[in-house]
């Protein structure tokens, strides 16, 4: 508790921004100075970026370290390897939870840059109507099931072989992130066959929609990101998370207003301490903006890492949600 109090002078949003940029450099350019963190990174460390510093686990899950037919075809060893990679992924998630999304993910940072650009222009942030938003939350689970189901079908020959890596083929990370390493080829149409052409047209369309969406709405892509679904499914073993003391909440609504994912549940919760929903990025903006001394906190298991306080809000001097 004493330590936390001393930390109050440090602004969490500044640390977060620093970590995000460091994460960006490691994930995007790590390979260029000999860093490669393996194939189980729980964020968009895109393998299509030349010289990247690790591989996104979603790629592995679809491909050579997934649980699909390729693992079965490789015999027991393949399955064991798949389990091993999953265990590593689960451990990384258990330790840091959605910090991977809010604090590390390079694609998340690009979205934050676009939001900053929107703010600089004074353009109003668009909201997604509540009913639409509720329907959209299902998309990430659909994508996740596609990631698990489609590659084995491709391996088994039921689907065309180019359905291997179905998610990567439509992931805007694949088209946008390599641009930062001077690689623009994934924006071109792939004329190999009808499947690849279809995928590349879809990717271009999705990239366009996402770029527009991400400019007008904070973290627009995260709404659809299968990582959020997958990490949320591992919530029972995740140590890091957001909790609320509903009996300390005065209902000012700051948490709801600064949330990049426009989550309302944190504001509305009146009973449960568990407010870590599937859309939460653990970015801690709500904890920063909460003027109640006990209401919100980010915890690692039983250890309270950062707790909301009125004094912290006063010292923020209006720098909310950066």
């Amino acid at each position: 508790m004493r330590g936390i109090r001393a930390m109050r002078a440090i602004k969490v949003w500044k640390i977060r921004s620093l970590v995000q940029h460091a994460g960006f450099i490691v994930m995007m350019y790590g390979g260029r100075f000999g860093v490669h963190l393996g194939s189980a990174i729980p964020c968009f460390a895109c393998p299509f970026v030349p010289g990247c510093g690790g591989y996104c686990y979603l790629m592995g899950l679809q491909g050579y370290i997934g649980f699909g037919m390729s693992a079965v075809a490789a015999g027991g060893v393949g399955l064991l390897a798949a389990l091993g990679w999953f265990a590593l992924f689960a451990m990384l998630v258990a330790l840091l939870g959605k910090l991977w999304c809010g604090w590390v993910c390079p694609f998340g940072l690009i979205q934050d840059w676009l939001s900053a650009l929107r703010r600089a222009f004074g353009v109003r942030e668009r909201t997604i109507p509540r009913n639409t938003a509720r329907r959209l939350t299902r998309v990430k689970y659909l994508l996740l099931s596609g990631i698990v189901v489609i590659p084995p079908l491709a391996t088994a020959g039921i689907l065309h072989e180019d359905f291997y890596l179905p998610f990567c083929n439509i992931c805007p990370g694949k088209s946008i992130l390599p641009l930062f390493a001077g690689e623009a080829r994934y924006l071109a149409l792939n004329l190999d066959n009808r499947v690849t052409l279809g995928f590349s047209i879809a990717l271009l369309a999705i990239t366009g929609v996402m770029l527009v969406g991400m400019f007008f709405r904070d973290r627009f892509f995260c709404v659809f990101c299968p990582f959020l679904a997958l990490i949320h499914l591992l919530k029972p073993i995740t140590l890091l998370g957001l909790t609320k003391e509903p009996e300390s909440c005065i209902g000012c609504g700051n948490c709801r207003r600064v949330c990049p994912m426009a989550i309302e549940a944190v504001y509305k919760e009146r009973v449960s301490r568990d407010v870590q929903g599937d859309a939460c990025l653990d970015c801690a903006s709500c904890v920063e903006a909460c003027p109640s001394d006990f209401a919100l906190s980010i915890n690692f298991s039983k250890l309270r890492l950062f707790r909301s306080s009125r004094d912290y809000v006063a010292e923020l001097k209006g720098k909310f949600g950066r």
Partner: protein
Amino acid sequence: MNLNLNLKMNLEDKEIGIPTERTLKILKKASERAKAEVEKNLKSLAEREDYSPQFDYFMKLCGGEQTPEAIERRTGRSAARLLCIQAPIELIHAAGFHPYKIASGSQAMTSLAAHGLPALMCPMIRAVIGAVLESGPGSGTSPVTSPWILPTTCDWVAKFPEMLRSFGVENRIHWMELPHLKDGDAGQARWLEEVFGLKKFLETSGAKIGRKSLADSVRIYDDAWRALNRLAKMRREERIANVWFMLIAGSFFLDSPERWTEAALSIAPSSAPPSGPGRARVFLAGSPIFFPNFKLLHLLEDTGITVAADDLCSGERVFPGAVACKDTSEFGIISALAQRYHQGCLCPTFIDNDRRVNGILCEKRTAGLRGVVFHVLKGCHPYDLESLGIERILKERGLRFLRIETDYASEDSQNLRTRLEAYRRTFGGERDEL
């Protein structure tokens, strides 16, 4: 005092516009009494042991002239008069006005507005009516340049202009219909409309409210909130007396926020307070308390009860502050303000106000409080009614609860003192050295 007014003192005086000799006499007498009341209270403040010249600025504000004209002279902006804190002051400020919440704690003023009004009535509204009659807002330029901005909070506010009209005083009023269910979408959407309506109204003065001016105003009031929070913290640590805190908070609207902030930041904490077991550190909740009616505050202090925190709309809640806003577009700021002033408000006029008690429970932990004194102004029904539910919850949480119902009159002082002393004794321990 401005006696050139369009004033009908009571219903017998048929000749509106020409004050009768009797009217003038009553006015003059009330005005003198009010002045004496203020001077007596200022004098007692100046004679306190912990008085220091750093409080002079705030004493001068609270004791000085508070007419719109005086406010306009002081701030260099046209005054926009408020009775509550539901209309976003940042928005009003961004339009070039000085938002100014009129509140009066003057006993003399309540008697001035005695005729033709309900016997059991909010003394604050009665005193404000008295002050309006005394300063004569029906004359000169003030009705045009200084509009009233009135969200329909309690019935007293809703009927306030009607009551003024019964005295022959017409005012320029902009109503904001306040949805009393604040947690639902319908209410919030409705209120946002009202806030945009206010923007439109303010812009009829020729001002243009833009992103830049809004952001500036939010920053100015955020600075002020930081200064207020600093003082609240000092009070929690007993480095400033509650009476001074209330005086400073109560003077907030009487000068430009920048000047007030500067003065508030320059207040130095006093030396470390006495400590030990058995100290009666309490939370002060309920109806607002305005200068010069500091009767209850003095009585609390005299009986050895230390107010370490409050949620009065004349104290820590004098303006909401801490408006978090990530969407810094014009719409984003206005909608953030609308939400902060509506769903974030803890006024008992709201039906779904169940979270109000959470603020008190938080302070119980932060400030180590052991009791709650709930102040009800006679006639202030919303607070009166809400005290029932709050009492039950707080007692369950082990806080000693005392409900004090009083008004501006000093006759019940002895009675209150006895009750407060009995309450003080329930805390055990020695009486604090004062």
